[in-house]
């Protein structure tokens, strides 16, 4: 319809003789997307190709000498460098601790706050507030609260007779502390995604189940949980990937310590590149991270497609 009108009364603008409308539309489209394409090529695609190339080189920033070493950086990581497997283990522990905790808490909060009641806005505001707060501020405050004897958390525990550990200095506790504080920071985001999903579930379903005598738990298990499945999977993707990317939180709270106990992949890459200047090795690590995140995304996309059917 509009195409026919357009031919009888062409729009103003780019008008070069002999240019078909379709051509013109394509040229306009390329012009409009060109800032994105150019910026994307310079700051994303180029660097992504470069990081592949760097990863095959032995290149310490201080020596300024770049030698091609093939896959040596990768084999070093997998076989020689003892840190690597500890780092991978830490990253997996971090994700395995954070994702279920975050999602369970998010779902519980969403179930409690999806219906209007007096004070619902107040509670939603509170649980979401850390999400808009900078991770740096959040990490600083928690680092302060979690100090050995002087920290507020331990002072409070002491008042009920519990002798708290020096949270961020003991390898066993540091990871748990980092995970829990990160969950508190980010859970609000998943909470609102769950609330949004819960609000799309028609209340008739639930009422019908209730009429047939279903309990709260049965309604949740038989009606709500299956309907939430697509949302749950999306949240799982976002949260898992987010947990592999966590950097500022670790950098500020533990610096990867104690005894490398919280040294996770994103921090390890930063450390190798910008503290030890091992560009080649850091790039190989970056590629490994890229592959992990890519695989996670693809697996869960596939999972989601199956779930939806």
């Amino acid at each position, binding site marked *: 319809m509009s195409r026919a009108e357009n031919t009888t009364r062409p729009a103003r603008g780019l008008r070069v003789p002999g240019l078909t409308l379709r051509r013109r539309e394509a040229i306009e489209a390329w012009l409009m997307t060109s800032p994105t394409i150019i910026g994307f090529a310079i700051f*994303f695609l180029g660097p992504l190709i470069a990081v592949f190339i760097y990863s095959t080189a032995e290149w310490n920033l201080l020596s300024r000498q770049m030698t091609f070493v093939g896959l040596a950086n990768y084999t070093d990581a997998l076989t020689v460098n003892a840190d690597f497997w500890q780092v991978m283990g830490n990253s997996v522990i971090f994700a395995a601790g954070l994702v279920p905790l975050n999602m369970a808490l998010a779902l519980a909060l969403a179930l409690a706050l999806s219906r209007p009641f007096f004070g619902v806005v107040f509670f939603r505001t509170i649980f*979401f507030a850390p999400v*808009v707060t900078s991770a740096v*501020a959040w990490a*600083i405050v928690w680092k302060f609260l979690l100090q050995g004897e002087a920290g507020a958390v331990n002072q409070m525990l002491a008042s009920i007779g519990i002798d708290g550990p020096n949270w961020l200095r003991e390898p066993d506790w540091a990871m748990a502390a980092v995970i829990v504080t990160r969950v508190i920071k980010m859970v609000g985001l998943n909470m609102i995604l769950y609330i949004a999903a819960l609000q799309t579930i028609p209340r008739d379903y639930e009422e019908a189940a209730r009429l047939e005598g279903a309990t709260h738990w049965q309604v949740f298990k038989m009606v709500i949980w299956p309907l939430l499945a697509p949302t749950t999977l999306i949240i799982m993707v976002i949260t898992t990937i987010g947990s592999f990317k966590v950097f500022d939180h670790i950098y500020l709270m533990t610096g990867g310590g104690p005894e490398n106990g919280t040294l996770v992949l994103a921090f390890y890459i930063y450390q190798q590149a910008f503290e030890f200047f091992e560009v080649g090795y850091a*790039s190989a690590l970056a590629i490994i991270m890229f592959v992990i995140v890519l695989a996670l995304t693809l697996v869960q996309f596939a999972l989601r497609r199956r779930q939806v059917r």
Partner: protein
Amino acid sequence: MTTKQWRFLNRTLWTVSLLIAAVPFVFPFLWMLSSGFKSAAEIFGQPSLIPTVWHWENFVEVFTYQPFARQYFNSLYIAVSVTGLTLVVASLAGYALARLRFAGAGLLMLFLVSALMVPEEVTIVPNFFLIRWMGLTDTHLPLILLPVFGPHGVMATFLMRQYFVALPKELEEAGRMDGLTTLGVWWKIALPMSRPALAAVAIITFLFSWNLFLEPLVFLSSLELFTLPLALSNFTDPYGAPLWHLQLAATSLAVVPILAVYIIAQRQIVESFAMSGVKG
């Protein structure tokens, strides 16, 4: 007990458990605020939310210890620039992807999707060399350019595209009848109809830029150029130990305005996150 009493008890129990759950979410903010007013000595004394002596001078010292006002302004103007640029670039590309027919659109989409799967940590090393080669280290340009054209910018493009696709075409066609160019249709018709999407992208982009840490850490070395997140972690004594009273006073100054805006525009901000989370 009667049903009414049961219901009351039930509701009270709910509220109490929610209040208990809220403690770890609220307490850090309160503690941060109150410690900002304490002396270095009192911070490690008997814990109390109310300082025995109010040290207002902490908030003055924050500004003399390092150029905090300048750093504050840096964060503000960078976040505004990133937001403005992202809105223009993302809505232009998003509009073309949603409405114009061109060969290569599918391929372009595929490339853009791939960006969403790549963490910034993966490209930060080559980007560091790129920026250094461009002579832009220790300037604010990388902190503006990288967020606009990185994965975050791509997500903004997607949000805009999704929104434009769902808009009714009739108004735009009417605009074309009246002789508007494609750019004219984008500016005068599509954008005004997309206020919710623009607001969502603006809010998320602003907060994203405001809270950015890795890029400033890698690219900046001069104190006067620091952004807030970097400045906050920099209140340390010569041996690297944190000066807690100053650090927490500065953190309060950085967090309170954002929290205030959040509380005022709470609904809008939360909806923006929900929108981007669901679609992105």
